[in-house]
């Protein structure tokens, strides 16, 4: 009885979570006419890759109000004028996300080790201080960040995003890793130093290999945060040279005409990198997210 209930409940939950994704994928290969049909076609009648073609071919095409009106046979004339910005924006997003992930690890791993294993004055104060920065909503920080970025001359530059995303993600990374490092016995640290490791070697040769699940959690969180971030990107970037994917995709909805199938195709592309990451690190994800929470 209990199992039947559990089975039903998890089925409902699964459908709830997966149905939108399925619809996203399905509609991205549908014609614009089909996508609006009622009842919706979960399985496309005439699957087409025209939307994806349009994304990758859009570079060469100059889509203007006039050319769009002439009617592009591929998309039924629904290509947004900013379509050709999508691929560069994906690159921008990727560059920013990868940079943030790498810099985040470079900063938060040693910081977390120090906070967990070295007793210095102000150690717990620094942990609390770092965490409090995270209870401030981003919207409150936008203006100070803006002035800061402006002073640095980084407006409309990817660097502005890297810096601010680090400010958002490093506290989280340190928090996860401090929790994990603290759960490892102090004596492990002592043993490594007696065995001839300097602090840095202790970190690299003993703690890092043990922390892989937590590192994966930090990498995923950081990557996704950077990949998704909208508000700050909207503020600090103005031209396609530095705009990221969420900005460009959002812009599609405010174009002359809205193409749902095209937007969904963009959505599918947006999902791919995180999915690849998740698949690669799959076996660490669950243990990483619970590490530190459960001692073991």
């Amino acid at each position, binding site marked *: 009885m209990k199992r039947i209930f559990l089975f039903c409940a998890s089925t409902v939950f699964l459908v709830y979570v997966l149905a939108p994704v399925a619809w996203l994928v399905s509609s991205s290969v549908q014609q614009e006419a089909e996508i609006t049909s009622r009842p919706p076609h979960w399985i496309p009648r005439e699957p087409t890759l025209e939307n994806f073609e349009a994304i990758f071919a859009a570079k060469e095409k100059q889509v203007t109000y006039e050319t769009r009106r002439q009617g592009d046979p591929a998309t039924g004339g629904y290509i947004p004028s900013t379509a050709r910005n999508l691929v560069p924006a994906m690159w921008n997003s990727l560059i920013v996300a990868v940079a943030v992930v790498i810099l985040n690890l470079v900063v938060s791993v040693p910081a977390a080790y120090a906070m967990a294993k070295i007793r210095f004055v102000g150690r717990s104060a620094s942990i609390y201080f770092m965490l409090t920065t995270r209870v401030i909503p981003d919207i409150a920080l936008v203006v100070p960040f803006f002035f800061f970025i402006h002073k640095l001359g980084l407006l409309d530059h990817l660097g502005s995003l890297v810096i601010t995303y680090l400010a958002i993600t490093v506290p989280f990374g340190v928090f996860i890793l401090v929790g994990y490092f603290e759960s490892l016995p102090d*004596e*492990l640290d*002592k*043993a*490594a*130093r007696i065995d001839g490791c300097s602090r840095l070697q202790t970190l690299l040769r003993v703690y890092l290999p043990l922390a892989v699940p937590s590192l994966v959690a930090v990498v995923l969180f950081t990557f996704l945060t950077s990949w998704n971030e909208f508000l700050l990107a909207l503020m600090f970037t103005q031209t396609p040279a530095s705009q990221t994917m969420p900005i460009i995709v959002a812009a599609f909805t405010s174009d002359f005409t809205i193409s749902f199938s095209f937007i969904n195709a963009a959505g599918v592309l947006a999902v791919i990198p995180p999915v690849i990451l998740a698949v690669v690190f799959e076996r660490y994800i669950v243990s990483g997210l619970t590490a530190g929470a459960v001692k073991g």
Partner: protein
Amino acid sequence: MARIRLESAGKRYPNGFAALESLSLDIRDKEFVVLLGPSGCGKSTTLNLVAGLEELTSGSLYFDDATMNAVPAHRRDVAMVFQSYALYPHKSVYENIAFGLRMRGHPAGEIEKRVRDAARRLEIEPLLERRPHQLSGGQRQRVALGRALVRQPAVFLMDEPLSNLDAALRIAMRAEIKQLHHTMQTTFVYVTHDQAEALTLADRIVVMRDGVIQQIGSPEAIYDRPRNTFVASFLGNPPINYLEGFLREKENQICFARGALSLILPRQYSERLRGQAGRPVKLGLRAEEVDEHSVPRAGETLHGRVSSVLPVGSDQYLGFEVEGSLLFFRVGRDLRHKEGEHVALSVNVNRAQIFDASTGESLLWDGSA
């Protein structure tokens, strides 16, 4: 090989707690020294200072004649065995043992040889490819020992290495550690709160309390001539018994008196106790220092009532009421007494201790170890 000297060493933790105030200790080369004391007395702190895992906040530390205060742990020639073993969970047993040698840049061939030697010696050869979580507690303990001994360090430190083992294994490992010290010929500093372990292993015992050394001496000296009631109570099982009373002098003999009880103290005590008649003192009687004589001798006999009989296999413990105090004695199992019986037990007064009643300092202490 090294002599270790701590001079007025102090350790104040960042939270302001002074674990050690001013500790001076001179450990001879190749000596086996045991730091003994109750939980929280600063044993681990002292050991960590020697290892370089904590920094002294005052005083100095020397290995032979070199000041070590500012030398970090990884540059000191010390090895250490921890209570929790602290094996690297992601490395095989082989790699655990080899790690210290690798970090110190020994050639591969030599590492291999030393690890195999150590493994053979500790009988863990078949386990070399396993991970620590695939080992029993005793096996982990051996790996931890192996990791320390391959290093052939000048100083071998152990922090309660046996306290996670069961009783039988602990006694077996004691013997192995003693053997190890014999073959390695290096300086051992060993921390424990188990008095039996200390008495078995040590060349010299350092008894500590609240960061202060109470007494340093050979196991016999510590056991037979404790400097104060703290040291006396800490060693011995069941613990030493105390009887409060007075000193009395009669006919050139010095006695301990309490109510109807009067024990004549041995002649060699008189020099230190003469002229102090009337002084309130505590008599310390170790649990094993009584026996039953067919002819009770005056001045060496306790008359009392057996209040409980607790057989423990080889021996039995007697709860014994004397002059309103309850004492515990360990006697042979062929003594047949029942609860409530009145008996006379002879005391080995030659081993009785006399302490000042208020300070607990031994009145027999002559300043020697």
